[in-house]
């Protein structure tokens, strides 16, 4: 992260809790740049997160109000906080397991209600904090602690999920492309109503090491190689798309 963003960090932080090569720190940087561009005062920002490595992106790092909640429930807490205090720009940042597995019902209902929240899902395609178990976002065939022979199930397409539920804005970008991610987060925060950004944030420790990419550089290159713009993915079959990260803005 550049020094310019340090003004948004909380004083008294000891250091980062993220593993070397974790994408979550890059996402933190992208988030702060977006906030900086919009120019929201720190006192008017509330960050809500659940439980998991990704839930530590805002809490305690960001020098604003941070509400670190229960596994899966960040969106529900944020809904209450926002409705009770509409002046606060309320941003949920949490993991794929947190937001879309245990918390999936809260996610779709917040989208349906069009509550004025921005939800940023740090998707590392695995349960990082608990030791690399399969998530509802794990690709077909990927090896995990609970699917050592490869995950037999398909992952959620989170952007399509929230669009189906009524999201005003939905985009997906990898942390390997920070400028796009910053743009998307900025647009999501600026758009009133329920907005969603999925950040592909690779996990070298739990995912890479189990899936032939123990080296961080190799893992990031693999993510890059799997990214395909939504326009170019249109001609693909459904099963082909599942093997890629289809990136771009999906709504509006």
């Amino acid at each position, binding site marked *: 992260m550049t020094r310019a963003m340090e003004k948004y960090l*909380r004083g*008294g932080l000891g250091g980062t809790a993220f593993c070397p090569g974790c994408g979550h720190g890059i996402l933190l940087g992208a988030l702060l740049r977006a906030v900086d561009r919009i120019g929201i005062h*720190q*006192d*008017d920002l*509330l960050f*809500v997160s659940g439980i998991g490595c990704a839930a530590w992106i805002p*809490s*305690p790092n960001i*020098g*604003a*109000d*941070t*509400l*670190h*909640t*229960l596994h899966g*429930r960040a969106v*529900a*807490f*944020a*809904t*209450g*906080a*926002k*409705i*009770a*205090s509409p*002046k*606060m720009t309320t941003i949920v940042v949490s993991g794929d397991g947190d937001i879309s597995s245990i918390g999936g*019902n*809260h996610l779709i*209902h917040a989208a349906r209600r069009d509550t004025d929240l921005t939800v940023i899902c740090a998707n590392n395609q695995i349960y990082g904090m608990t030791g690399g178990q399969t998530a509802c976002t794990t690709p077909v065939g990927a090896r995990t602690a609970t699917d050592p022979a490869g995950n037999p199930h398909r992952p959620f397409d989170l952007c399509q999920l929230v669009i189906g539920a009524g999201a005003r804005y939905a985009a997906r970008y990898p942390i390997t492309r920070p400028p796009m991610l910053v743009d998307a987060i900025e647009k999501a925060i600026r758009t009133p109503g329920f907005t969603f950004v999925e950040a592909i944030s690779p996990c070298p420790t739990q995912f890479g090491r189990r899936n032939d990419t123990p080296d961080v550089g190799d893992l990031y290159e693999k993510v890059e190689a799997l990214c395909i713009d939504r326009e170019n993915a249109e001609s693909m079959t459904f099963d082909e798309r599942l093997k890629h990260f289809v990136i771009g803005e999906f709504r509006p």
Partner: protein
Amino acid sequence: MPGLNEPSSRRVLMQGNIAAAEGAIRAGCRFFAGYPITPSSEIMVQMAKLLGSNDGRFIQMEDEIASICAVIGASGSGVKAMTATSGPGFSLMQEALGYGYFTETPMVLVNVQRAGPGTGQATHVGQGDVMQARYGTHGDVFPIALCPASVQEMYDLTIRAFNLSERFRVPTFVMADEAVGHLREPCALHGGFEIEHRNRHGEGAPFGSDAPDGVPPMPAFGDGKKLMVTGSTHNPEGFRKVDDPEIHDALVTRLMRKTEDHRGEIVEVEEFFLDDAEVAFFAYGISARTALAAARRLRKMGVRAGLLRTKTLWPFPEEAVAQLGRRVRAIVVPELNKGMFAGVCRAHAAAEVHSVTQTNGKTIEPGRLVTFVQEVLK
């Protein structure tokens, strides 16, 4: 839109659940999140109406877990907040109630108990959640739970629940039951209460206090305090400290002391005919009304019977029960469960404690208690 009605000492016919909603508004509640469940739904419906005309916020959530989480979020924003539910919903809320306790978030939950376990008998009365109110969430918690026995108390104790919750930063339960919730009787929506507000702007760290039983100030989101709220172990400033044994122990202990050291301020009991009693009922909620009717009948029959009624379930009225145990020969505990509070009573009273239980979804008939006491005294 019309605002809050003027308080009035005039008694009007009202349902218990409606009185709870009126009490909440009088106490300053301006946020309700909930999910429908019999026999509590009237509270939610009434709150939708009252909050709409009192500049409040109402939201029907997707389930009870979301409801309690939204309530805690709203309270963090500085707004007095409440939910209402019954057995199955109370079970779903347990994890978040522990979170509310550990983050010292004021909030009120009205549980209109029905006959459990399971889905049980949704429209019938029970008192089977009284231990869940105390031990339902994981870890050591010391919540506050009140127990109304009339429509008037649905109003009064809901206000009191908000006051205690704001004063101590502890989630507080109104453990009503289906009979009291659906009862219709005269109730005055009076204004005879001081209304407590959390210490929002006080000096000091938001999650610590020098006094061992201290209640720290609670700034709201947006107050410029850059709050760190977390359900993980934290230091007084709010920084997560998940490996420090001393910080964990100090936090768990301070939270316990907030309720335990203020028993005198929290616990309320009421005595009937105890001066010369040789046998006494110890009762709560709708069963206390049965017990009072039975005590009156026994008195007419020449039996020196009395009643200790508690309006506070938790913290348990230990001192009052111990004292009762020294005054009477036998204590009879009637309740709509398999003897939950009789067990607690035994731990604190030296006298013999008899349990009268009924789990058929109906209130106990006074006649049953009269006969029981006659047998005991034989």
